[in-house]
């Protein structure tokens, strides 16, 4: 069976259109990031408290909001009714995110859990440990350290990859690959911002995996270009690149399809905790495949054309 027969699509002809699409998607992401004042960061990076609890019955978010509006610990009053409060998986589970407060009481996460437990008697499991799905408190101190580390990780990964490709291929290939990767990360980041999802530690891991995956895809095509340049000196650079993309198209589609299928299953069946991670991966697989054809390869052509002028 073959999905893709011998093709001869002029991908490089479409590159202008593709550039426009990419620019539009990235710009709308960037605008969304600017409007929201940067990516929505999870407590991993910002510090704060996250609590998720499981009620016996379906809960109305508005009821939880009003309960969270009057939390009092030893006379210290808090109004969290406008914080992020949402269902977590099923309708009985509720997740609450509270920003970091400088003089918050000791063991604040537990105090919130207790308040949520006591506010709705009769709707909670008898055993409190069945009520708590999870809780977490991160001090902003750790958060800011982690942000620095995450940025360092992404930069050092990109740097090492640039180095490797420069050695194995040529420098312009490395630039093409890095452009494609940056494109992928920005598109995913922008889409996350547009969708209102937060960037947590696992999402950073997903980003780095997207980087790895997209690169994998790009290099398979580059490899073909390298091979075709050696074997045929007569054809134009443009034609060679286009032929290489077409020749590896079958592999690109099959691999992207299988990878997409598994992350889709992860997204669909994997449960609430892994949901956004899988979503980032799904976006990443699609964008990664697209970018190796429409971003990485055209940039190599462009750089080649510039160099012979």
């Amino acid at each position, binding site marked *: 069976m073959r999905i893709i027969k011998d093709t001869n699509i002029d991908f490089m002809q479409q590159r202008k259109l593709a550039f426009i699409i990419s620019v539009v998607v990235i710009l709308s992401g960037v605008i969304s990031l600017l409007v929201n004042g940067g990516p929505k960061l999870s407590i991993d990076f910002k510090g704060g408290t996250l609590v998720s609890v499981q009620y016996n019955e379906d809960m109305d978010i508005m009821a939880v909001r009003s309960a969270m509006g009057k939390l009092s610990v030893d006379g210290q009053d808090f109004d969290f009714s406008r914080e992020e409060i949402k269902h977590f998986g099923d309708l009985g589970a509720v997740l609450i995110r509270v920003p970091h407060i400088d003089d918050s009481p000791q063991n604040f996460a537990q105090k919130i859990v207790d308040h949520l437990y006591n506010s709705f008697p009769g709707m909670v499991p008898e055993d409190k440990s069945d009520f708590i799905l999870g809780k977490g408190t*991160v001090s902003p101190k750790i958060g800011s350290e982690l942000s620095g580390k995450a940025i360092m990780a992404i930069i050092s*990964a990109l740097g090492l990859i640039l180095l490797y490709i420069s050695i194995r291929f040529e420098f312009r290939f490395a630039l093409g690959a890095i452009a494609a990767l940056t494109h992928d990360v920005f598109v995913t980041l922008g889409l996350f911002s547009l969708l209102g999802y937060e960037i947590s530690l696992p999402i950073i891991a997903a980003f780095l995996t997207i980087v790895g995956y997209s690169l994998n895809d790009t290099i398979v095509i580059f490899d073909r270009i390298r091979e075709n340049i050696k074997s045929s000196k007569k054809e134009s650079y443009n034609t060679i690149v286009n032929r290489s993309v077409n020749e590896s198209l079958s592999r690109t589609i099959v691999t992207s399809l299988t990878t997409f299928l598994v992350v889709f299953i992860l997204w669909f*069946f*994997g449960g609430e905790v892994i949901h956004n991670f*899988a979503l980032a991966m799904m976006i990443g697989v699609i964008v990664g495949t697209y970018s190796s054809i429409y971003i990485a390869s055209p940039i190599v052509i462009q750089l080649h054309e510039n160099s012979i002028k």
Partner: protein
Amino acid sequence: MNSKLTPRFLIIALVLTWAVWAIWPTIQYQRLSEAEKETLREEGKLEILESRTIKQGLDLKGGMYIVLEVDLPTLVENLAINKDAKLQAALSSVRDQLLISPEADFFALFSNISNDNNLKLSRYYYDFGSSNEVILTALGEESEDAINRVLEILQNRIDQFGVAEPTIQKQGNQRIIVELAGVQDSDRARSLLESTALLEFFIVKDITTTNELMVKIDQTLRGNKDISSIVKDDSADTKTSIEKDDGTVSVSELFGESSTENNTDSSSVTPSIVAEQPFSSLLRNLGSTIGVPAKNSYALRKMLELPEVKEKLAAVGGKFVFSNKAQDYPTVDGDVESVYSLFLLEDQAELTGGVVEEAKANLGPQGTTSAGQPIVNLSMNSDGARKWSIVTGSNVGRQVAIVLDNKVHMAPNIREKISGGGTLIEGFANIDEAKDIAIVLRAGALPAPVDIIEERVVGPSLGAESVKRGTQSVIIGLIIVLIFMLIYYRVSGSIADFALIWNIVLVLAVLASLQATLTLPGIAGLILTVGMSIDANVIIFERIREELRKGKTPRAAVDGGYNRALTTIIDANVTTLIAALVLWQFGTGPIKGFATVLFWGILISMFTAIFVTRTIFNSFTSGKNLNKLSI
């Protein structure tokens, strides 16, 4: 079979046998029931088995993860001999700078600030050396030593608390990471870790001094703008204070004893008691002690932090300390409110916990006031016992407060001189709390306070759900990919499927032998490996198809396909390996789990795709004269 292929098959067989051997304990362990585990534990075999299995991360098993940070500024402050305002000012500016840039090195900051302010450290730390540099180096060593002691003490406490497989490790030079799997009562574990276990004995100031001080604090705070933001309108209502007919409260009445000082302002009629007596209006008379209704305690703590209040306290040489828990008291209108007790103590401790030799939790013996209540029995070493007998002997009739971690547990009256050093502490909510306190007292006080800077708790039900969903996803994903390959590449697809299954088994085998921890992101990594490891096969198969289309024989096509695909596969995978390595280097906990799986998944998929499937293909094409390849 071609004899050249024999060594290759031998290698494959060896690797597969090893994989089964490595993964077997994990399978065995999964199939054990709780009762069987218990039997094995008693025989001591469970630990051996566990050491060879893949561990589940806290996100799968449920449990708590805590990062503790040793409070270096306080440690250094405690080490100083003649503490004065200048040193404290320097340390507090270090603290402020650390809040702004948490990554900064404490000792570097301390060194800068000392030099800027011409602070001669030898005044405070003459034991450590004479020049600032020497002292700072010595303090650095001292703090490292202190952190190691903290680590040891925490280890000790946790061991006595009784948790299966606790992990305690040092991270950097001032953090400690504690992982407790399956801990249900995170509250209890938290206080066990956080407690400094600093036990102190203070003499309680007499009532007259306390009364006078409160009047002075009220006077100082009167008209203070900062207070209105702290104190709520309903703080000082009729329920919490005893009112005169004219609507004011006098401090003397709060205590039921006449004050020597005549409060001239008490007669003036003011609209708000809070404005008149901002401090004492928040209090409540509990007979022999001062009470602070829980709802006022935040406001009161804030007031006690005000510099003008601190000044007044310093003038009398005392400090206010809260009781460790609130008790329920009926209010005037029949409700019940919980009330903390507040004690004015001498600011220097008479005796500290270093003298404790043994601490045991018990129920109070019959015939005493604490009959049936949880108590902790202390015995002191000879030095402590001697001091204790002096303290009690010279303070008969006065109250002594037993303070643990800056909270008053009890403040009994000294009836007679206590010699021998045996002491009993009461004031615990339940026997578990008494046991935990006994544990921390036995393990000794921490040389420096620790702060919990990160805490994550995963409930057991969420963990179980994650395991179920994760496993489900892996199986479904695997089956879909297997079927797809079978349809798309037929017989060759089945070879790839064979390789894929072995790929997963090998990854798990490596994880088991590395004793790695499988986390939820790790499971995601496993699924990703399924998707991506197929890639190597796809690259090869597409190449073989191309070669076949060029009219090559199956054998030549297989050879050509593999040779040409090899560089592509290596180049493509090395870059993903780079990403995985960076993640591993940077990541903590769950992320590290993901990176580990990804790393080994890629390495192994290269092995299975290049070596294992090639060998199978070759055995197909070399033996008989194959003229058609099912691909």
